[in-house]
């Protein structure tokens, strides 16, 4: 049973590409055959997060225009050979691919891979419509911020209009201390507004930035909270029942004190 997943958000900068890279590596670590497709033509950067830029020979545009076979354009991951990336072009723009092209491509890749994960561009225009065309499942990434939640809401509406009913939510870049002090929207508020199944709560973690610069997604790093959160999401995607983690936001003694107070 293979699944085509689109990772989308509406707003830029909430962590679509980071999420795509981490889920891809996470699923590959579990032994799944995974292909990642970057559809952010003209602003590609999924290859950077995976550290694969120097290995790119062909891209998505070459494939849809029939210049090369899909197999030739796929870039294999350095560490996990069951993880492949189909990068896009940095010089063309979104009009170079249309929804029918991507649908055909997904159906082709679906035969050979367990997971096809599509990194969607920001916005709700053509690029978005193309990216979601072939997907069975949509993962909406948002942040505890009014503008990000507003855009996620809009995106969920758009997905509904495109008859994508299997929609899941990841809340990214949470700052537990700010949530606690009431300066950041809490998870209940977000779930109340968006009202779709939440499969992940990822804390804001400095390691995400450093690992992106190194080209090694944070998933699987045991000393990283975000890495653990992504691992949990991978588990949930595979149908495991994993409770949401408690964020470490205060010292052990402070928590102990709190525990005795109640």
């Amino acid at each position: 049973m293979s699944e085509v997943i689109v990772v989308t958000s509406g707003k830029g900068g909430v962590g679509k590409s980071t999420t795509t890279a981490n889920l891809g590596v996470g699923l590959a670590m579990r032994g799944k055959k995974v292909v990642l497709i970057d559809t952010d033509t003209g602003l590609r950067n999924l290859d950077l997060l995976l550290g694969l830029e120097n290995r790119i020979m062909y891209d998505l545009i070459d494939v849809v225009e029939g210049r090369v076979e899909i197999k030739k354009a796929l870039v294999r991951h350095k560490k996990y050979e069951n993880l492949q990336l189909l990068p896009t072009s940095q010089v063309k723009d979104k009009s170079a691919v249309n929804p029918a092209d991507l649908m055909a491509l997904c159906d082709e890749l679906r035969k050979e891979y367990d997971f096809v994960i599509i990194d969607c561009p920001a916005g709700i225009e053509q690029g978005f419509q193309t990216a979601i065309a072939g997907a069975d499942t949509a993962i909406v990434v948002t942040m505890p911020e009014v503008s990000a939640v507003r855009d996620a809401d809009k995106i969920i509406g758009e997905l509904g209009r495109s008859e994508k009913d299997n929609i899941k939510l990841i809340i990214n870049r949470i700052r537990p201390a700010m949530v606690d002090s009431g300066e950041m929207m809490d998870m209940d508020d977000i779930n109340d507004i968006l009202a779709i199944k939440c499969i992940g709560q990822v804390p804001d973690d400095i390691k995400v930035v450093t690992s992106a610069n190194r080209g090694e997604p944070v998933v699987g790093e045991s000393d990283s909270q975000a890495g653990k959160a992504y691992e949990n999401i991978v588990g949930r995607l595979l149908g495991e029942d994993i409770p949401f983690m408690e964020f470490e936001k205060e010292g052990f003694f402070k928590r102990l004190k709190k525990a005795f107070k109640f």
Partner: protein
Amino acid sequence: MSRDLVTIKGGKDGFRLLVDSSASMEEIEAEIKKKLDENPGFFPEGTKFELEVADLDRSVKKGINQILSQHGLGVELSAKKDPPPVSDEQSQMPPQYFIQHDGNVEAQEMTVVEHTVRGGEEVTSQGSVLVMGNVNPGAQIIAGGSIDVRGTCRGMVHAGAWGDISAVVIADRLMPTQIRIANMIARSPDIMEKSDFAERASIKDGQIIIEPIER
């Protein structure tokens, strides 16, 4: 006067005329005349009205019939013999009587939205709107009649958009960015409070007021 003695409302099957039974025949007559003169030619001539009867006095019934026939309209007795059973809450309210517009020329419809209305979506209806879900921030509901949200209302709602000042907005949790009724606009406080009970917004004494209701 805090409330109208006679109110014309669009129902599922057509227009209804709500009459306050505490009003005298003269008051009702004046009020109906006023309403009909406000919108001359609104009801096609010769239209029969259906009258739902509870314990309306025979003379009052006759009187209403007379007023309407002067305007080329008529009254028809409702097929319904008995009024629906009155619950405790309803019995505390003054009883009301309904005259329904028989033809469906101007019949008002109710739009039922069976899902959450999300940001960027707009629901527009000539009649009333019932939302079985939330109205999220950034969404808009524009209704000729009233708006009922069975959930949390956080978007922009405009009831009575074509001038019906008797339109109301009801929500389980009413915390919209803006409420508009007819030509009046009320905006939310800058710091939104969470409401824990159903509320109704309506126009009273020339301004939009919000009051808790039970449902």
